[in-house]
């Protein structure tokens, strides 16, 4: 069924259709409307979940952690400062291997205060052990939330669904929503004792002291299992097929742009303009940052690659570009743009890509 939904409402709808049992979240723009919508669904009885109005993001993920450890399907959502405030819990959840799903509505980290999108917040989760997806539009935000529960519960790693603040979160689009019966078939009830369950009269201890080797084995296993996520996504059996990347006009591309998130729509329009001018250019859009689509990038056979990203690792530059360079077999150029929500539209991309092709592009687009 087709519904008109903002990105945030699409996420809330997916959380409802996943029959999520426990939700805890704290308001922060531009994430707030997800939890408002979920609170409304719970109050109206459309969703049979416990909704906890926690006093902070740290507690939001702590409560979700407890619920998930107790066997429930649990969800939270946040942005930027909220993510940083819950950061300790993010690692705790990952190393506990609990299949929590979180929506991360990307927003700049202050100061100065800035509620607009960039991808720095999402990338602070890069090394933690969360599966990191980044959607391009409301449809993907919806689909990836459902796929998130499925894959997280299969592989015992938490799953974060990124969506750009305002550009996706607050923009209404037509979303193709499957039938509840289709979702139920795709996503059965959580196996409650996996990876473990904390319950009365079952005297196990989880998370306490252990040998140093145990920690190392844990991280090694997480790294190994993360590598299986690509196949799980591809074979998820969802109503639409998904992959770690999207390939746009790539087949004969001599020039390849690598990006992620909402602005890829504008960038694709720019690619069409250059194509009309006879430039063989295409896009590899990252739908996932973790696992990193290394194989897909290594396979690119082109003259050169441009990574456009809205983040900066101060002292090293573009985070994604650094990673792309480590696996690509063609020269890679990095450009940082759109940080702090600075607008980059179709015209910008057209001139950016032209300069890239000519070899006249600098590292910062401002």
């Amino acid at each position: 069924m087709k519904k008109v939904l903002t990105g945030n409402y699409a996420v809330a709808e997916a959380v409802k259709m996943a029959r999520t049992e426990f939700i805890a979240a704290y308001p922060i723009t531009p994430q707030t409307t997800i939890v408002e919508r979920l609170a409304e669904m719970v109050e109206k009885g459309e969703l049979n979940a416990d909704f906890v109005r926690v006093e902070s993001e740290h507690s939001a993920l702590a409560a979700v952690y407890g619920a998930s450890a107790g066997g429930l399907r649990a969800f939270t959502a946040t942005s930027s400062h909220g993510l940083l405030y819950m950061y300790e819990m993010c690692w705790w959840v990952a190393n506990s291997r609990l299949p929590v799903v979180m929506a991360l509505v990307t927003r700049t980290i202050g100061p100065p205060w800035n509620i607009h999108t960039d991808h720095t917040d999402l990338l602070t989760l890069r090394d933690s052990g969360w599966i990191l997806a980044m959607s391009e539009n409301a449809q993907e935000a919806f689909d990836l939330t459902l796929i998130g529960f499925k894959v997280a519960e299969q592989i015992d790693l938490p799953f974060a669904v990124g969506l750009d603040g305002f550009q996706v979160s607050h923009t209404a689009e037509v979303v193709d929503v499957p039938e509840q019966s289709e979702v139920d078939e795709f996503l059965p009830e959580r196996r409650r004792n996996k990876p473990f369950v904390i319950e009365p009269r079952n005297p196990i201890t989880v998370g306490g002291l252990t040998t140093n080797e145990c920690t190392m084995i844990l991280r090694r296993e997480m790294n190994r299992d993360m590598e299986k996520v690509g196949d799980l996504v591809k074979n998820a059996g969802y109503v639409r097929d998904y992959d770690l990347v999207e390939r746009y006009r790539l087949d004969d591309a001599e020039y390849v742009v690598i990006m992620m998130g909402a602005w890829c729509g504008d960038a694709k329009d720019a690619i069409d303009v250059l194509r009309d001018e006879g430039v063989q250019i295409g896009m590899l859009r990252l739908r996932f940052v973790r696992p990193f689509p290394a194989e897909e990038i290594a396979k690119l056979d082109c003259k050169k690659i441009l990574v456009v990203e809205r983040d900066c690792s101060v002292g090293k530059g573009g985070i994604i570009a650094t990673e792309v360079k480590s696996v690509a077999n063609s020269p890679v150029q990095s450009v940082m743009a759109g940080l702090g929500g600075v607008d980059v539209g179709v015209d910008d991309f057209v001139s950016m890509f032209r300069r890239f092709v000519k070899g006249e592009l600098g590292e910062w687009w401002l």
Partner: protein
Amino acid sequence: MVVVKIKDLPKEKFLLPGNTSCQGCPHALGLKSLGMALGDDVVLVVPAGCTTIIAGSKDKSSFKFPCLHVPFASAPAVATGLGSAFRRLGKKGIPVVWMGDGGSDIGFATLSGACVRKDDMIVIVSDNEAYMNTGIQTSGTTFWKARTTTSPTGKREEKKDLALIMLMHKADYVATASVGYLQDFIGKLRKASEIDGFRFIHLHSPCPPGWGFDSSETVEMARLAVKCGAWILWEFDGKFRISPMSKPYADKSKRAPLTEYLKKQRRFRHLSDEDIAEIERRIDEQWRVVLALEDVF
């Protein structure tokens, strides 16, 4: 008040012998009592602190309780989630947060939030009046003038009164307790277990290495704190009552000499006579507050 007879207490051990607590550890006394009081209804949530160590390492767990270890500032929120899981999945049990005074500093917002929401749990703060696990640093509940490694000349600020704070938070049940009076503690735990919602017990836990007294004297030290009036046992279950062990000491003339309590502890060795007089004044003030509360509630 629930009367607890020692001969009726269950023999089953929930804190196992051979655990890694120090000799004379107050947490160990408290955890043993928790097992006797509530047995296998307990699901422990333990944030960072000495109890992290006491719980054991790798496959050598010291607990017969199920136990989830959690970050320092997170425990009541985790218990909220666990409680929800037990209720939804029809499992009978109580999430019990067992944390130190440090946990109630760094996790204060979390404690407040869970209490305000009246989430279903029992929170026990085992208060040894410092961050012991990291090497005796000052906490919010460290006694005025006590020496710690971060207050080498003695703490300058007042001890925070956590139990009264939780009372004002409208917790469903609040009590103070002491490892010197374990039957009283067990009785309060059982009372708490019969009440729904957010239940809070502030347990006074003298720590031999942290305070500087002999490890054979934990119980004696805890009792002295009550007898000199410095630690007042009370309970609120809708009605505020001073507990029988503390009741006599409302009358100042019945109290043990304060110096007896203070001088036994290395952390107070440096106190002057004026300091002791000031502590006495503050104890009197605390009694006025508690007695007034008995009238009001």
